[in-house]
Structures are given as C-alpha cells and as structure tokens.
C-alpha cells in the first residue's frame, strides 16, 4: 500500500499533468501485475464490490474516534469526502504494515462471507495498521468514486508511456464490461488478441465550445450542422445478437432504456451508433426534465415507459458489419447511417438526427436563434471530412450553444460550501420580487471567482439576520445575474418554476435591490421558453 500511497501523494501534490503522468508511468513500470490491474480498474471507475455499508463505516469510525455519530455526519459535508472524514477522525494507528494494494482489495472482498461483527473487527484491524494517507485510500476503496485527480485519460496516457503501446488503442481496450476479477493484466493490456468484448464501446469524441462565431471555421460548405440536443449522449451497440447502451460517462445503461431492445428487430448485427437519447413526443423531444425522471432509475416503471418513451437521435455510425469506420470521413459515415435508417417504421426507437441546410454562416446564425423552439440547446458543427476521434479534441467538432437565459435576482440565504470550498459561503438561494415580497426560486453554487466568494463570505458573516442550522438568512442587498439553460413549471417549488443549470453569471454590484426581476418576468420566460 505504501507504493500506491506514495503514488497518490505525488499526484495529489502537483497540479501539473506532466508530473502526474510521469509518476503514474513509473508506478506502472514497477508495480506487480495485480497492483497494476487494480490501479487501472480504480482509475477507470471500477472498484471492489462493497462489503460493508458506508453507514457501518461511519458508526465504527465515530466509535473509534470517540465522538457521537451526528458529529461525524456534520463534519462530512464540510470535508466533502467520507473517506477523508473518516481518515481524519480516527485515532493514530498502533502499528504499521506494508502490504500491497491487492492485499487490501482481497481483504475487502473476503469480508463478504463474514458476519457483521467479524467485518467490523477486520476493518478496525486494517485502520489500526495504516497511516492517514493509506487509510484515506483504503476507505476510498470501500466508499467508491476514486476521483483523486487522475482521469481515465491521464491514466491511459501513463500506461501508454509505460508499455510503449498506442494511447488510442489502449483507450479502446480499457472500455467495456471487464472487471479485475474476470481478466488479468496480461489479457487486458498485453495479449496480442485481447479477447473481443462484444459490449465494448468506442471512446466518445467530444466537441469543444465555440467561443466566437463560426466565421473563423472557413467555408460553410465544409461543415455539417445539427441541433445540439439536450438529452443523454449515448452509444448503442448491436453485436452478438444483443444490444448494449453506454453513456458518455462510460456507464452501461442498457437496462434503463428497455426501448432499445427492439433495435435488433430493425437493424443488422455488428453495428455501433453514436447519438442522443431523448424522451420523444412524436415530432420533437420532451423537455429535459421529462427525461430526468428516467435517469437514476435502474428499472423503469411501466407508466414512465408510456409517458416518456425514449428514442436515439443517431448522428454517427462508428461500426458496420463489425468494421471500425472511425477513420472514414464523417460525410461517408453519415451517408451509410442514413441508408440504414431510411426505411424504418415511425415507431422504431431510432431516427437520424436531422442535418440542417445552410449556405452562409449568417443563415446558420438565424437557424441557431430558433433552437429553443426545437427543444435544442444550440447547434453542433462538424467538419464533413472529419474522422471520429477519441476524447475532447479541438478543430473538427464544435458546439455552438445559445446564449443562456438570465434573470437578475436577490440573494436571500447563504450556506457554506464543502470540500474545496469548506470555509467559504458558496451555496446561495435567490429570490425575485412578487409585489413587496421576495420569492425564492433557485439555488446556485457556481460562477463566481474565488476572490468574489471570499468577499461575499465576509459580507455574509456580517449581515446574517437569522440562522437555520447551517443556513443563514442574510439582509436582501446583493443582486446577481443568474444564467440558466431552460425553465419549466414545477409544482414542487414555491415559485412554481424550476431552472436548468442555474449559475451566477455576474455579481451586479451596480444594480439596486429594487431593480431585480419579478415573478411575472419569470412567468413570461416560462411562457416563452417552457
């Protein structure tokens, strides 16, 4: 565990990607195959099956730390990470061991067969021989979400450096449904013919935000435009007679969207499509909040399936007849895809995302201005001769989003942040005028600079009117511009509306309190864009 903890410490103590990659590559050159495999697994979002619940961990840690459970619970949101909170609360270890990462993972897996008292004994025994950093990592193995400043991309690059393999082909090998229990380092990384994995998706190609207009992109004739849909980016795979659905976050979502099972009736095997999963109401998508009801549900109740059926708006063909098409120009991939989808019945859960025709950038700008009418967030611009790359690459694919909607609102409640922002007030509730009353309508956490958060924190401390636990009611004084991507009616909220992606876009220190927007202004926006 020492080597792994040292790796973590090195990575954690630098903000430079090159140094992180170097440290990781060195680890991959020296660690055992088992430790390497598990390290790859952890940094690609895999973890050992959870043998104890986080509730149990909290209870045991509080007991050992000599504090009541509620005090641990109160500390957790401030620290921002449960594994870290527990590591900080535990008394110092009484002894020290140096067993490898794989040992501790094996130990955790072996807990599954033990009763609860034995599990506790083993966890407490582990804590008692690990130093604070090792404990933090050990706890992370249990609590999951191994986000410690190493992205899968960075890990893949380090692995490419350490093995001399090509990064893109390694990225592909690392995708799909493998687990450290079902493969070995050799089979996953080194074997000539890595065992074909039918569920394995291609790494997604991600677009950059177009900051200025499209004029700099050159001749409009070289570009294809589509709506930028507000759904879930997904890859649908038809291989081996069955189907798989992957999210951009490399999460297997096949069970969440049973509608796609029927695709095998319409389409040939050996096919991979990239597109947007949207809830469909016949001619256009439902607003995103309809789809939201489907996210986070592992199984979908019948009613929801009827109310919000999903389809794939397909925009790219990555594989046909088992052949990888990613090196072909987009125009050709697109033509092949349209040929496949052309004669499908209307009720097939898939259709080609429309291409938008335009001759000049000015004409396209006019189309973009109508995006909200089509339930889209803006446009996607793709170079017609572009290959399908992996990851976020500049040059061939751009998203040209609509400017967000905005309202000027009054800050009325403030709450301290957590994790990175533990000692700052960063979580605010905003209100608009309804006659002489201020009606809360949204929260926002992001958009200000650290410097602005420090200033507003000092102000909140001095202008607290009342406290409700961690929430402080402050004197209505400061006006902020709130930017958001969408607005819809919501009976659950006092104001009757809910916003999509609200954030603070500007601190309107120039604006008097009375000039903030009103509830009627919000209702007008709801009418127009809801």
């Amino acid at each position: 565990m020492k080597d792994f903890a040292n790796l973590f410490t090195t990575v954690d103590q630098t903000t430079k990607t090159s140094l992180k990659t170097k440290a990781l590559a060195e680890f991959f050159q020296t660690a055992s195959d088992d430790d390497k495999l598990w390290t790859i697994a952890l940094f690609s979002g895999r973890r050992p099956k959870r043998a104890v619940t986080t509730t149990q961990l909290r209870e045991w840690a509080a007991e050992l730390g000599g504090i009541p459970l509620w005090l641990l619970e109160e500390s957790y949101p401030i620290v921002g990470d449960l594994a870290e909170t527990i590591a900080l609360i535990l008394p110092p270890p009484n002894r020290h061991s140096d067993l490898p990462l794989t040992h501790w993972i094996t130990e955790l897996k072996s807990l599954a067969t033990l009763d609860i008292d034995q599990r506790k004994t083993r966890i407490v025994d582990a804590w008692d021989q690990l130093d604070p950093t090792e404990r933090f990592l050990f706890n992370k193995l249990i609590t999951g979400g191994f986000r410690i400043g190493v992205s899968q991309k960075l890990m893949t690059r380090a692995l490419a450096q350490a093995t001399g393999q090509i990064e893109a082909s390694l990225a592909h090998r690392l995708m799909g449904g493998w687990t450290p229990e079902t493969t070995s380092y050799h089979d996953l990384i080194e074997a000539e013919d890595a065992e074909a994995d039918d569920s394995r998706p291609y790494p997604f190609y991600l677009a950059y935000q177009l900051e200025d207009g499209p004029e700099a992109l050159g001749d409009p004739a070289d570009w294809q435009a589509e709506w930028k849909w507000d759904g879930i980016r997904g890859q649908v795979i038809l291989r081996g007679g069955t189907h798989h659905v992957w999210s951009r976050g490399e999460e297997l979502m096949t069970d969440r969207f049973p509608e796609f099972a029927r695709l095998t009736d319409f389409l040939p095997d050996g096919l991979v499509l990239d597109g947007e999963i949207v809830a469909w109401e016949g001619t256009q998508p439902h607003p995103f909040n309809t789809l939201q009801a489907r996210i986070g549900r592992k199984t979908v109740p019948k009613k929801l399936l009827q109310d919000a059926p999903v389809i794939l708006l397909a925009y790219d063909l990555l594989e046909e007849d088992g052949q990888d098409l990613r090196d072909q120009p987009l125009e050709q991939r697109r033509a092949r895809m349209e040929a496949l989808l052309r004669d499908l019945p209307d009720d097939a859960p898939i259709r080609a995302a429309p291409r938008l025709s335009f001759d000049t950038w000015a004409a396209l700008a006019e189309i973009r201005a109508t995006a909200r009418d089509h339930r889209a967030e803006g446009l996607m611009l793709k170079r017609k001769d572009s290959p399908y790359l992996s990851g976020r690459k500049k040059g061939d694919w751009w998203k040209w989003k609509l400017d967000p909607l905005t309202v000027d609102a009054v800050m009325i409640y403030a709450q301290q942040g957590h994790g990175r922002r533990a000692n700052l007030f960063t979580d605010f509730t905003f209100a608009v005028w309804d006659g002489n009353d201020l009606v809360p309508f949204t929260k926002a956490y992001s958009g200000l600079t650290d410097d602005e958060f420090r200033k507003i924190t000092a102000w909140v401390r001095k202008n607290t009117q009342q406290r409700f636990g961690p929430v402080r009611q402050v004197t209505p004084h400061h006006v902020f511009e709130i930017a958001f991507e969408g607005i819809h009616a919501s009976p659950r909220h006092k104001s009757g509306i809910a916003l999509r992606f609200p954030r603070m876009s500007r601190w309107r220190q120039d604006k008097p309190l009375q000039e903030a927007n009103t509830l009627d202004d919000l209702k007008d926006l709801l009418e127009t864009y809801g």
Partner: protein
Amino acid sequence: MTKPVLTFTERGIYCPAGDFFIDPWRAVDRALITHGHADHARPGHRRYLCTDGCAPVMRHRLGNISVETVKFGETRKIGDALVSFHPAGHLPGSAQIRVEVAGEIWVASGDYKVVSDGISEPFEPVTCHSFITECTFGLPVFKWDSQAEVAQELNTWWARNAAQGKASILGAYSLGKAQRLLAMVDPEIGPILTHGAVENTNEVLRHQGYRLPKTIYVTPDINPKNHPGALIIAPPSALGSQWARRFGPASTAFASGWMRLRGVRRRRAADRGFVISDHADWDGLMYAIKETKAENIYATHGYTDIFARWLNTQGYNAQVVPTEFGGEDDEADAA
C-alpha cells in the same frame, strides 16, 4: 437577575459595567483589543487598550491612534469592571481578556492556540464563569501534528527544492504565522527572503525584542539569482502573482490549518500544504474550555452551531454568539 458581564451588540462584545467594547467592528469610544489582526483591531476607535506586546504592531497597522497598554496579568479598573489581559498564544502579544464584575468572571478568548510555538507567549488558562471561545477549527477532523513534525516536513521540502535548484515560496499570514515559521525553519538550508508585508512585521517584532533569524527583504533591487535555494515567505495573496514570478522555477506551499482538508489544499492549487495554524485544534479547544472551569460557553467565529451542540452534550451550557464579524481581508485560508 443582574445584568450579564458581557453582552453581544451590533458593534461587538460590550461590557455595560465598564462601558467598553472588546474587538469591536464599528467605531466606539473605548476598545479593548485582544490582538493586532485586522479583523480584531480595527481603525476608528477613540481609545484603545491592549498589551504592551500588541501595541507596536497595532500602531504600525492603524497609524496614529490613542493606545494605552497593560502588562499581561495586570489588573485595571474600568468603571465597575476589573479587567486583565492573559496570554492567548495566538501570536506575539495576543491576549484573552478577563472581565470581572461583582465577583462574576467572563473571559473573551479572542483567537488562541494552546500549544507553544516558540515565539508567542504561551496560552494561559483563566478560570471563569463564562468563556467566549473562538472555534475556527471546531470540528473533530481538525487535529494538528506537533510543531516539530511539521517543521521537519517544511525543512525537508525546502532542502529538496534547494537541491533541485528551485525556490521555495511559502504563503503565510504576515503577522504571527510568518514569524512562527521563521522560528521553525532551519536557516542552515539557505537564505530566507521576505515579502514587504512580512518584513514590516518582522521589523516591528524585532524591535520589541522577539528573536528572528536573518531575513532579506525582497526589494526591486534584489536579484533572486544571487540567492539560490531561497525560502521566500509571503502573504498568500502574493503567490501566483507577478511578484512571485521573479523567483523563476519554484515550488509553492501554504501554511494554514485549512491545509488539513484536501479540498481546500487543492483549491489553493499550491504544490504543498503545511498544516500549521495559529488557532487551537479540536483537542486544543476542548482542553482550553475544560481548563477555564466555565459553565457557560459562547461560541463565535467558526462552526459555531455544531461546536455549541457538541458542548451541550458534554455538560456545558453553550450558546452561539448571535452576531459575528467576518474578516475584511481576503486571507480567508490563512488561519
């Protein structure tokens, strides 16, 4: 029922029997000041009273003010109140203020730490009935390693950077923390350079007789190349600024209790975070409170709700100070 010895007002902590305020944040006639940090010693009061160790820094920061000084432990009668100042261990000259009215004793802690730092007068527990305590780090996740352990980490970091031809830039609050760090580092490793804000304070404290190692004030004439392997101590805001770039390749670090939290450490985006604070940690707060033998505890400045709730489960009558003054300065992470 008699009036409480100290009350909490919009201007700050007030003593009706003596008609004075403690660390007020709005202009008052008579202010008793615990220590010279900007959120405790504010400009604009007509008369100031503080320890003789605190006065020079306060004069330096606030300019021409009317200051009267007392020695630690010396008792003054103000109106019907007996007032004395006792070491808080927060920084050189920092005090807790004891106020006694008709046999009822209250202590306002100001900011404090209970471990000795080698430069500040060590914290002295003062027995009282009611104790107004800060709780900046009033959560059980805040526990400090010993100063010797952190000093070793600090010196190892500096020595390694020096060996790699890099400068070591350390961000720390210019009054108190910076001088404490000077007392912790090993001057044998290399030259120590200071930012103007730090050096001004050094000057004041040296003049008072506090002993600090030799430091070189970074003026525009100073060429960093003539001081290879230097440790540079600067206020946190100077890190990442134009000022810091003159030192060429450098490793950066912050020294603060907040560095205990990985999230805060990462937000500051420094290479290292040394957990060293001028405030008491969880165990330190509990020790101090116990030693006062006070029954009534007033929690201010920090995670007050949680801390007061905890104290109530421990048999104290604890409350949250209803108003609170925030630091105006932007060194929110320097504590």
